[in-house]
């Protein structure tokens, strides 16, 4: 993001930056991940963040480039406040790497965060294994996973079976 300046910026400038973000997403391999670095920034306004990152992420969640993911890397969580607010307004959630840890920016309910934590810890897992660990019914677990997959916070891989008994493996994107 620092290619756009140290203190960014207005909506129009964010709109121009979105073209760059979407082009970078389009150039990734089918399972590629775009890491957006906030290093070198002093200020990231909510308007710029929404136009450049929020709207790009909205496009991804709406079905653009299935299999590709986006993650933010930041030297300070304060820099992400405007982005987090805008993602919340859009009812989206993104993974953000900070100081060797990950956090969720935006809106993600606590049960979904709990499930996401388990997937990140395990790297890959199944719905049954998650339901057993979380001690929740399979249906509830499937609902949580559906939302996490929709939000591109985890990736699902079909491993066998046929509908309605299709089997999936769920992968952490980190």
């Amino acid at each position, binding site marked *: 993001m620092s290619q756009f*300046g140290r*203190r*960014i*910026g*207005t*909506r*129009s*400038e964010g709109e121009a930056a979105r073209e760059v973000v979407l082009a970078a997403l389009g150039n990734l391999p089918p399972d590629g991940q775009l890491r957006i670095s906030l290093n070198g920034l*002093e*200020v*990231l*306004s*909510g*308007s*710029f963040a*929404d136009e450049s990152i*929020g*709207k790009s992420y*909205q496009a991804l969640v709406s079905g653009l480039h299935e299999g590709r993911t986006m993650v933010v890397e930041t030297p300070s969580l*304060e820099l992400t406040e*405007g982005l987090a*607010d*805008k993602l919340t*307004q*859009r*009812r989206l959630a993104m993974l953000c790497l900070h100081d060797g840890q990950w956090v969720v920016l935006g809106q993600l309910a606590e049960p979904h965060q709990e499930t996401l934590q388990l997937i990140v810890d395990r790297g890959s897992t199944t719905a049954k294994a998650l339901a057993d660990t979380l001690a929740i019914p399979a249906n509830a677990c499937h609902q949580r996973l559906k939302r996490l997959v929709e939000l591109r916070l985890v990736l699902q891989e079909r491993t066998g079976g046929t509908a309605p008994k299709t089997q999936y493996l769920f992968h952490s994107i980190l």
Partner: protein
Amino acid sequence: MDLTIERVEELLRFVDDGAPSRLDLSAVRFADPYGLLLLDLLIHHRADSGAPLRVAWPTHPAVAGWMRAMGLHADLKGTGTTRPPRVEAALQPIARIEEESEVVDLVNAFDARLAARYPLDDSPRMTLVRIMIELFQNIPQHSNATGTAPNPHGVAAMQDYGDGIFLAIADKGVGLRASLSVRDDEPIDTDAAALDAVVLRGLSRFKDPGRGQELTRIYKMVRSWDSTIAVRTGDALLTHDPVRGGEIRDVAFFPGVQIALVIPRQVFGIPEVDADRDPVFNELDE
């Protein structure tokens, strides 16, 4: 008479009631950036409307000098000024906000002027920069949302006082109610309702869920800093200060949106100074 958040209303009511051709400001003893910008826009508004005001300027040398140093006369002549003020007490003269592409440079200039005067803590400093980016860009983005404002004209200015940093941003565009009128699903009948909708509820003229809520966030942020905030549009004024709390009240009509933030010095890690040791107050309290 003072030209401050509270007292400038008397001036606007006087002009709104009687449509006078002459404005006597000779007795003005104090003006803050918000009062200064409203005066600037009022004079422009009357000139644009074909009913120019003749002004008797303040006779108090400190007030007259500060107004000049803040670039009031240059802005009224349309010449503007980018030069640092000659009077040390003036912090950031009136700057016009016209193009969105100029906003970040303008914000950086405001920040640089403040940082040159005080060592500032990084975190609140960058938060103020973020606030200014949002407020300044609102002028090119929203002040002529309906395309009906003949001259939406946006300005900003900043001044330091013994207890706080005073930032004012103002335009004489279409105002919040007209801006919201482009939505057909949220009928807003009054300016007070528009203030409530935009500042307190985060409504935007856009249906895109990512738009709006910036004024709401700024309102909450400055409240958390124990700051004073005023947002004026049309015939309604929302004020909030740590002592009296918040209220929206009816005022005389004036077009556009005008905003004042008074942020305590300690937010930025700057020690407060007694009024009688502050060069500005020394001059004005003679």
